[in-house]
Structures are given as C-alpha cells and as structure tokens.
C-alpha cells in the first residue's frame, strides 16, 4: 500500500529527527508494573519477555548438558543411573531445540528489532504476538508436567515404535510441542505480514535490512513446516493413546513414515534456527566494518534459496532407515546444494570485511567466532551428506559435534553477537567491554575443547546417546567435559556483566556503534511507539558513504495529519530545515 505509492516517484516533505541521547520517555518508563508487562501488546516488551524465557530455558538446558558431560567423565557409571541419563539427554535436546533455538532469534531479538528496522510502530498483529508468547508458556508447562511425572527418554526425535512403547510421559511432551508449534506459526504469520505491509515510506524490498530478509525467509519456513510437525505429533499422540496403526509397525503402520513426517518439519527447522543468525551476522559485520554489505542481493536471496532447498533435503536423516537407494541418492545430492547459498553468504561477508574499517568490539568478535565455527559445522555437514561417509558416521559423536558446531557455534554465537549488538538499544545501558571480551575467549576456547574431540571419537566409532563407552575414548570424553565447564564459566561471566550493566551500567547514547540502521535512529531505549515521527528512508541500510543526518529523516509534521497529535512535541526537537526528497 504505502510502499506502492511511494515507489511512483512521489515527493514527500521530510525533516531531520535527530534521536535524543537522553530520552525522557521510553518504552520502559511507559506502562510500568508486572500486570502492564504481562498484558502488553508492545513488540519490544514481548521480545524482552521472550528473551528472558529463552535465557531461563537455556540455563536449564545448559545445566542438563553439564550433568551429561560430568557423567561421561568415566567409562562406566560416574554418578547417575542409565535411565536418568537417557532422560537428561532427551530433555537437553528437546529444551534446546524447541524452547531455545527455535524462538531465540526470531521471537526474542526479531520481535524487538524487526518492526523498528521497518520503521513501524508495531508488528501487524500485536495481540497475536502476545498470544504467541502465552502459547509458548503453555507448551512449556506441558513439558514440565511431563518432567514431574515420568520424564521423557525417547530422544528429542520421538522415533516410533519406541515412543509408542516407552513408559515415560511421551504424550505430555508431544502435546507441549503441538501447542508450542502454534506459537511459532503465529510469529511467522505475523512477521510475513509485517514485512509486506508495515514498511515505512521509502523502504523498498531493495532497502530492507538483511536481518529482515533473513527473518522473512525464516517465517516462510515456520509457516510451511510447523503445521506438518503439528499433525505429526498429533498422530503420534493418537498412535500412543488409541493405537492408530499409522506409525506403529505392530499395528500395520510404518515407522519410516514417521521419520519422513518428522524430518519434513525438523530439517527445515534447523534453518528456522540458523537463518535468523545469518541476518544478525550481516547487520553486525556491516556496522563494524563501516562499509556497505558486499553482495546485498546475493545475501538476501540466498536466505530464500536456503529456505527453499531446505524443504527438499529431509531424507538425509534416513540414509540408514531403509529408504530406497534412488531417494537416498537424490537427497544426498540436494543436501550438497544447500552448501551453495550458504557459501555465497560466507564469501560475501568476507568480501564485506575487505578494506573495511574493522572495529573489534564484542559483537564483531562473535561474528568472527561464528565464521570460524559455522564453517566447520557446515563442511562437516557436507561430509555427513555424502552417502558412504554417512553410513560410517551415522549416529556417532561426529554427528553430535556437527550439529553443535552449527546450532551452537552458528545460531547461539550469532544470538550472542546480536544480543551484544542490540543490548544498548534494548536496555539503554552499556556493558563492560573488557569482561565481554574475556567471556568471548572462554566461549570460543571452551566450545572447541568440548566439541573438536567429539569429531575424532565419532570418526573412531563412539556412538551417540550411549551411557557407557570403551576405555579408548576416555581421554576424548574427559577433554570434552573440561571444555564444557569452560563454556559454563563463559556464560556465567556473560550473565554477570549483563545483569551488572542493567543496574549499574553506563548510559548508552542513541547510536553507540555509529550504525546506519533505522533501529539505531530511535532513542536508546526506544520510545513506546519506537519513533515519535514517521521515518522516511532514502538510502540503503548499509550506505556508510552517506552522511548520518540523511538516515534520520521523517515525514515533516504538517503534511501528515496522522502525527498532528504529537506535532508540538516534534517541533520542539532539534531539526534542520525541511527538504524535499523524491523516493523511487
């Protein structure tokens, strides 16, 4: 609508709105109190509520991981029973996938940042946005009920027939995942609509921040894949409850059909987790190189290409499940194809760095960690996609190391980059840069010490999910466990200095990084309506060769009756003379 008209070379009267470094009114001072937070439809507050929930789940999932690693210090029993161990790795996986990785970047950071990057006041459907948060909470409650009953020991993949026979509380968790799926679907639907319909004047598709492109691709996957997971877990619930005979071979069903259904969601789901991370990397790398992103369209469209190809590769999880040889070959080939758009991204990011004014602040450090770890994760993924190699490596620690390099080394490191990048915007506070750098060293070293040995022992035949192991793997497992403790220390340091900055941190200016991004042209923390004017965009989000004032434009007050209520307030602010810009 608005954009269609703007693209017809419409002339708008604009003026400069320089964001104040000392905002008197922010979304944090507006609507205070627990009840106001719980019933808010403000995308920023909902984003913060998601962020806190994700952090809590990450702490739980991380603690479970440390327990697992501690148990693996010795080849036989160290301190927990085998059944407990099965439950711990299942919960670690389920919590990290469904409650941390899937909502982490889109629902937490994306919710907060994306409408601001579009110059919108909110997402298209604010009430649905709040509903999605409570649906997420409801899904979590179901999962905790399962914990309080008999736990879950099927692995996060719920493979039949074991999941129909297991004595643990499978139905509670599958219903939890079913409910949780709606949260993801609502977020995706909301984001697609917001990106299409809520862009400020001048933001054409070619001027969308790459973070928005990445969230767009992610939302498409969420909308297309999640309903299939919903129906899958519903059928699984029915199978277990009534004996439907669709997945259980004893009743005439087919367990491989379950795997097809499950991975039709869960493989695209890994792109739900990683693609938003790509968006953050693009934003941070441009801001801290002070340079236009190299290959804007290549990066933007490769996100969509990954989303598309990601739907065609699910069969590579079933190379050893009795899938036909033809299907297996095709899936293997398609799996290699995913490497192309991903490689395009990596090369464009590297090219962006070239001759940039690189500033090694904490977000940028995490970008470099990301590039290193994610490349390892990606290349080992190609090896696993190769048929004969996969037969050898299937269900070993090599697979475990691979997806931790992608999911943790990719998504979580990108999340840390984004969190450190946008923390001043979200809270209005600066964190301790020195401690942040120390923590990043712990994270990087700890991560590699944990997971590099797993590649080696996996290649030597150590199977995943085993409680005991043969003596030859002891040194690898012990190294890995020590690494996991280092990682734990790193995250505790991060928790410490972020909390410290909340209460005692220095005040952040509106734009501490000198970014050209639209979200940085609002105050830190932003106003309740993000901007107190209607932003107008005339340059791309990474045009660092253009002067900063041309990124701070908004509709001149008297041309837009919509803003008449706040006209007085706006006139009082610092402003240049009005200018006329042709948008097109």
């Amino acid at each position, binding site marked *: *609508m*608005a954009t269609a*008209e703007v693209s017809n070379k419409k002339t708008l009267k604009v003026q400069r709105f320089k964001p104040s470094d000392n905002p008197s009114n922010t979304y944090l001072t507006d609507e205070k109190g627990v009840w106001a937070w719980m019933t808010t439809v403000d995308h920023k507050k909902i984003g913060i509520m998601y962020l806190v929930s994700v952090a809590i789940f990450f702490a739980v999932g991380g603690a479970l991981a440390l327990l697992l690693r501690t148990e693996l210090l010795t080849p036989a029993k160290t301190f927990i029973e085998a059944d407990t161990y099965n439950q711990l790795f299942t919960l670690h996986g389920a919590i990290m996938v469904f409650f941390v990785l899937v909502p982490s970047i889109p629902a937490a950071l994306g919710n907060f940042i994306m409408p601001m990057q579009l110059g*919108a*006041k*909110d997402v*298209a*459907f*604010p009430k649905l946005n709040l509903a999605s948060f409570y649906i997420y909470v409801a899904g979590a409650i179901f999962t905790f009920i399962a914990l309080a009953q008999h736990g879950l020991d099927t692995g996060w993949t719920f493979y039949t027939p074991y999941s129909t026979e297991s004595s643990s509380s499978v139905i509670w968790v599958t219903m939890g995942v079913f409910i949780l799926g709606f949260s993801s*679907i609502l977020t*995706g*639907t*909301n984001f*697609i*609509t*917001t990106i*299409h*319909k*809520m862009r400020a004047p001048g933001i054409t598709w070619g001027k969308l921040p790459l973070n928005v492109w990445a969230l767009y691709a992610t939302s498409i996957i969420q*909308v*297309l*894949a*999640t*309903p*299939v997971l*919903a*129906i*899958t877990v*519903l*059928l699984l619930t*029915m199978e277990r*409850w*009534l*004996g*439907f*005979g*669709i997945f259980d071979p004893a*009743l*005439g*069903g*087919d367990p491989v*059909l379950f795997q097809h*259904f499950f991975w039709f969601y869960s493989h695209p789901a890994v792109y739900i987790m990683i693609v938003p991370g790509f968006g953050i990397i693009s934003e941070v790398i441009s801001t801290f190189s002070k340079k236009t992103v190299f290959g804007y369209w290549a990066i933007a469209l490769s996100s969509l290409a990954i989303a598309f190809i990601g739907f065609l590769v699910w069969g590579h999880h079933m190379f050893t499940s009795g899938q036909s040889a033809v299907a297996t070959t095709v899936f293997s080939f398609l799996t290699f194809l995913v490497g192309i758009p991903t490689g395009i991204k990596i090369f464009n990011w590297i090219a962006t760095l070239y001759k940039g004014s690189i500033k090694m602040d904490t977000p940028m450090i995490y970008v470099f960690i990301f590039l290193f770890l994610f490349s390892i994760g990606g290349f080992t993924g190609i090896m696993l996609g190769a048929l004969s190699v996969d037969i050898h490596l299937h269900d070993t620690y090599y697979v475990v190391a691979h997806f931790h390099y992608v999911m943790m080394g990719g998504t979580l490191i990108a999340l840390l980059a984004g969190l450190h990048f946008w923390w001043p915007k979200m809270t209005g506070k600066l964190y301790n840069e020195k401690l942040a750098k120390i923590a990043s060293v712990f994270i990087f070293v700890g991560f590699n010490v944990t997971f590099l040995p797993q590649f080696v022992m996996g290649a030597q035949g150590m199977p995943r999910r085993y409680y005991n192991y043969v003596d030859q793997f002891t040194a690898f497992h012990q190294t890995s466990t020590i690494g996991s403790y280092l990682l734990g220390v790193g995250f505790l340091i991060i928790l410490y200095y972020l909390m410290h900055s909340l209460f005692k941190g220095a005040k952040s200016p509106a734009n501490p990084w000198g970014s050209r991004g639209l979200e940085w042209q609002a105050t830190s923390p932003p106003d309740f*309506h993000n901007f107190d004017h*209607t932003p107008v965009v005339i340059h791309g989000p990474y045009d660092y060769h253009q002067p900063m004032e041309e990124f701070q434009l908004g509709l001149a007050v008297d041309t*837009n*009756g*919509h803003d*008449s209520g706040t006209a007085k307030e706006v006139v009082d602010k610092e402003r240049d003379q009005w200018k006329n810009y042709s948008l097109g």
Partner: protein
Amino acid sequence: MSNHSQAHPAHLQHHFVDSDQQFDAAKMGMWVFIVNEILFFGGLFCAYIVFRAWYPDLFTQAATELNTVWGAVNTLVLIGSSLTVAMAIRSAQKNQIKGLQINLLITIALACVFLLIKYFEYSHKLHIGIWPGAELYTYEGIDHPLAHVFFSIYYVMTGIHAIHIIVGIGLMIWIYIRAKKNEFGSEYYTPVEMVGLYWHLVDVIWIFLFPLLYLIE
C-alpha cells in the same frame, strides 16, 4: 490512501497508518494462515495417499461402510453455507446490516446441520464397533486385518475438520454479535471477510475429504 487530516475511524488500530493498510494486513495474514491450514491437513492427506497406495483393497472395502447419501447431503449443506457466508460479506460491503445478520444466522444453522449429520454418522459407527485405533476397534464386517487404519485416518481427518466447523460457528456468533452492535458497514467489514475466508477454507477441505473417503471404488 485515505485523507490523513480526518479524525481516525473507531475501528483503526493505532499502529496502522490508515484503514487500507489495516485491511491489507489482515487479509494477507489470513491468507498466510490458510496456507498453514493447508499444510496441516496436507500431512493427513499425505498419510492417506501412502496408506491407500499400500493397501488399495482396504480402502475400497472399508469405504463401503461410509454412508454416501449423508456425505453428499453434508457436502450440499456446506456448499450452501459457503454461498450464504459470501452473501453476508456482500451485505456488509453494501451496508445492509439486516442482510448481514440474516445470512450469518443461516450459515450458523447450516453448520449446525452439518455437525448434526456428522454426529449421527459417528454414533452409528461407534455403535457397531468402528472406533478409532486398534485397541477399541471391534467391528468384524470388513475382511481386512488393517481395517482400523482406514478408520483411524477417517476419524482424524473428519474429526479435525469438525473441530474447524465448531471454531467457525463460534467465530460467526462473534461476528453476529458485533454486527448487532452495528460495528460493520461498507467502511469496515474486515472481520466479516476474514471469517468468510476461513469458512470457505473449511468448505474446500470437506470437498476434498468427501470424494477421498466416501466415493472410492
């Protein structure tokens, strides 16, 4: 775009620039939701295809247990309700609030007729022992060891569809109450159109379910 200098209409939410943007956003969101629904049912259709390809005999034998006449009646009922919901939208667009209310009431009534017929179909099957799932299934009239699989698929497909009908009835009651309060007219009829879209979707899904389950030979 509408004139900015006018006062905001009551229906315009604060975060939209104007009514057109609000309507476009709602419509797009609804279409994305419909895509969602199609993928959701798509999983079931996929299960149907797989099992029908594996056990064609099972499907032709078991389908004879379904009552084609009542299925056909229900198809007509739903197609009729799609017509009346479209007429409801048209009435709202033309400011005919009375027509909107009447058409909504007829649609609700037709939806209830559909559920009633479905209730009799279900209760007849449950009565003779055709229950969903192998554990409860006791009917012996079908000479196939996997007869329960067909009816599992039948119950889950038609059951989820029936849940959508119930949700649709709730939505239309909500729209009816708002129409009574005179909230809709040619200026603002977004919720009416969105519920109409949803209702057409529910209808289209049934149009696929009916031949796939009832009319196979």
